[in-house]
């Protein structure tokens, strides 16, 4: 009885206790969820003028365009992405994501299978895009981007930021990008001599770019003239003579298109007037990565800076600079880190410094000549410091596998090299290659130029399938013919 009573008495107390605990827990959860879900539901207006309401902070995002993928990753939402299109290859982490096969007409079924709570696509067709209606039927919030200028790209970054609860990050990112574009515009607005540029996408037959294409935009902003800027379409296929008559000062070929790889040497071999083009005579043939000049995402600005460096090397050798204020007090207990993101992806971690001061890192588009046996991966880094004595830091430079493939550089041979002033040559540093994360790391104790380089592999034949396959195909075809011939004859 006593026991029972005790229990009876205890019950309300216990219940109260549990209730309190639950309340606290709920409060804790609410507190934890509060910043994530703050501002939701949110209503945004996308590039086609559609009003889209997103009820909760998205946690399962599908990106159907490499540009969109890069924006979403740049906003730090990589872990929320559940699917990307097959052309998305940057940042390298996307390799682990599920793929949407068709980017022109995304398959609603494929997207539905990923169970997304936000779908972001790029519209190739603009207003009235039939894909929009198709994907809207999924009942999942759908954002359609359709950028045609830098301002549109910035607007899209803000749009995606708003829709995903990354308003602050999006604002910061667009401000940096805007500043970088403005810097290029400011430097090129007064150039008196604009080089004539021929931008090649394919040969043979020739495919090049006209107004409305991203490379054309970049050429214009970077202070050049696209020789096909007067064309009426964004893709142009002129006769070869048009290029020869236009006498371009600079030729830029695209890199990273399967089956197309043109360099100064191969263009020279075309004969028929090509060798008379000023760009060929002066050796001004460059190639630009397809992903930097055609994707409406943050890296378009990288492409612009590189383009500006090619067109106006006198103005743009220093593509970007970063500074780190060294603090000896702080260094006594920990290290100081500097992360470089535009143009070069690198981390610098200062281990020791004797004096306070500032460490200035610049990414350069040109530097001391690289020996023939080596190939430069990425850009040159110049690291300077007011009082360099006693300074020790680690330098971590990231690379992408596709970049190495394009350059024909083997991963094992990658090393960070430094420029030795006394010997006037590039010397290797003791480097560690991390193949999983895709970086090379070295410890540095003096300041000069640095660059990631690798040994050029002997040119691997471009044909995965050699002549004997041709012969087999021909053989099989003729065999079929003979069999049918004999069969027909018997009848």
């Amino acid at each position, binding site marked *: 009885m006593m026991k029972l009573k005790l229990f009876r008495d205890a019950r309300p107390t216990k219940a109260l206790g549990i209730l309190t605990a639950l309340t606290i827990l709920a409060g804790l959860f609410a507190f934890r969820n509060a910043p994530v879900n703050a501002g939701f539901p949110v209503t945004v207006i996308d590039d086609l003028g559609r009003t889209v309401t997103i009820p909760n902070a998205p946690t399962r995002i599908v990106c159907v365009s490499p540009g969109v993928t890069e924006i979403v990753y740049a906003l730090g939402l990589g872990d929320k992405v559940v699917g990307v299109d097959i052309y998305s290859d940057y940042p390298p982490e996307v390799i682990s994501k599920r793929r949407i096969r068709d980017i022109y007409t995304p398959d609603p079924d494929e997207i539905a299978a990923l169970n997304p709570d936000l779908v972001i696509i790029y519209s190739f067709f603009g207003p009235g895009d039939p894909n929009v209606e198709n994907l809207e039927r999924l009942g999942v919030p759908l954002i359609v981007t359709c950028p045609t200028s830098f301002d549109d790209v910035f607007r899209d970054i803000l749009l995606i930021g708003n829709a995903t609860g990354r308003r602050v990050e999006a604002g910061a990112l667009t401000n940096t990008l805007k500043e970088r574009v403005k810097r290029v515009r400011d430097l090129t607005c007064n150039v008196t001599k604009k080089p004539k540029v021929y931008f090649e996408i394919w040969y043979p037959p020739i*495919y090049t770019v006209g107004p409305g294409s991203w490379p054309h935009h970049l050429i214009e902003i970077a202070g050049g003239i696209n020789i096909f800027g007067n064309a009426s379409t964004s893709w142009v296929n002129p006769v070869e003579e048009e290029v020869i008559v236009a006498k371009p000062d600079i030729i830029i070929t695209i890199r990273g298109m399967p089956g197309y790889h043109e360099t100064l040497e191969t263009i020279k071999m075309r004969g028929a007037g090509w060798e008379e083009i000023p760009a060929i005579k002066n050796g001004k043939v460059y190639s630009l990565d397809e992903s930097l000049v055609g994707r409406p995402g943050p890296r378009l600005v990288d492409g612009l800076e590189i383009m500006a460096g090619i067109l106006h090397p006198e103005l743009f050798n220093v593509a970007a600079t970063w500074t780190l204020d060294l603090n000896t007090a702080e260094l006594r207990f920990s290290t100081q880190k500097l992360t470089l993101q535009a143009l070069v992806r690198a981390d610098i971690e200062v281990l020791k410094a004797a004096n306070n001061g500032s460490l200035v890192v610049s990414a350069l588009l040109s530097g001391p000549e690289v020996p023939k046996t080596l190939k430069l991966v990425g850009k040159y880094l110049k690291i300077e410091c007011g009082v360099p004595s006693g300074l020790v830091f680690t330098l971590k430079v990231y690379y992408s596998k596709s970049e190495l493939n394009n350059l024909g550089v083997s991963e094992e041979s990658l090393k960070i090299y430094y420029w030795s002033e006394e010997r006037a040559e590039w010397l290797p540093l003791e480097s560690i290659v991390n193949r999983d994360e895709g970086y090379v790391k070295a410890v540095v104790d003096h300041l000069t130029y640095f660059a990631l380089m690798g040994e050029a592999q002997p040119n691997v034949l471009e044909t995965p399938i050699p002549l004997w396959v041709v012969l087999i195909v021909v053989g099989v075809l003729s065999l079929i013919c003979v069999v049918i011939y004999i069969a027909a*004859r018997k009848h």
Partner: protein
Amino acid sequence: MESSRVEIAYLKRFAKWSLILAVLSVILLFSMGVATAIGPMSIPFDKALKIILHQIPLIDNFVPVDWGSLEESVIVQLRLPRVLSAVVVGVALSIAGVAFQCLFRNPMADPYVLGVASGAGFGAALAMILRLGFSVFGAVYAIPLMASIGAISTVFLVYGIARTGTELPVLRLLLAGIAVSSFFSALISVMMALAGEDLHVVYMWLLGGFSLSRWEYLYVAVPTVIMGFIILYAFARDFNIILLGEEQAKQLGVEVEKVKKSVLIIASIITAVAVSISGIIGFIGLIVPHIMRILVGPDHRILLPSSALAGASILVLCDTVARSIIRPIALPTGIITTMLGCPFFIYLLKRSGKIRI
């Protein structure tokens, strides 16, 4: 009296034919001249002519050089191969068209009736997608080579399917051609779907054009087409008789089956060569024979050479229009041949009232 009347009729006909061929030759030469002189770089007509004359051995010493090396390479390396390719393809498609329409006694027949086009397209797509032999021949040669292999294999395939014993019935040939052609078209579509962007070159190529012309192709194409023309011309009288019907032709002593086989093979090889240079150019092979039949009559002795000359002129002019109408964009030539040719053909059709073979 009687024999002299025949002789006069013969002479009259000979004079008429000579006149027709002379006029058509002048038109062709004129078109070639215009085509060579027109281009993004402005080169005066007389200078272009002098540059061309300078290339011919023996005469070259009499032509004073007053032009730059750039002008010369534009004319010699870029424009001439293009114009000559158009001539060769025009001749090839027109005479193949005449031969096929006659053999099938069908006004709908064209050089691609036996599936040459899709066979060639399949070969080109295969070369493109697998990068077949690119290292051995280079992309510039691998595609035409694979295209002609594809085209000729297709013809033999169709031939083998249609053949019954020693006979080669026309209806079976047509149906086998349609079946094989559709099959290869489907294969091309599958490959395009699989390869995506890589195949835009094949797509361009299927539309037909001369942007890849070079002298090296002509070294193979010109002799083949000339040989083909000579052989087909040797059959001209047989063609005239076959038009009466195969039975009548047999009774009149024509070895119909033999003629049919040889002509099919020759015409298909010529078509394959044309396709390998220019891709698939529509209209010329179908409609030039009809136009010339309306203009010069159905006798193959004049129909063959006049179709050859007219086809070449039309193609050269169409190509010139294609590459200069909306500069700097060069349209695929096949679009222009169809757009300009069809209205003209419809006009002739309306005027002449009925169509003959």
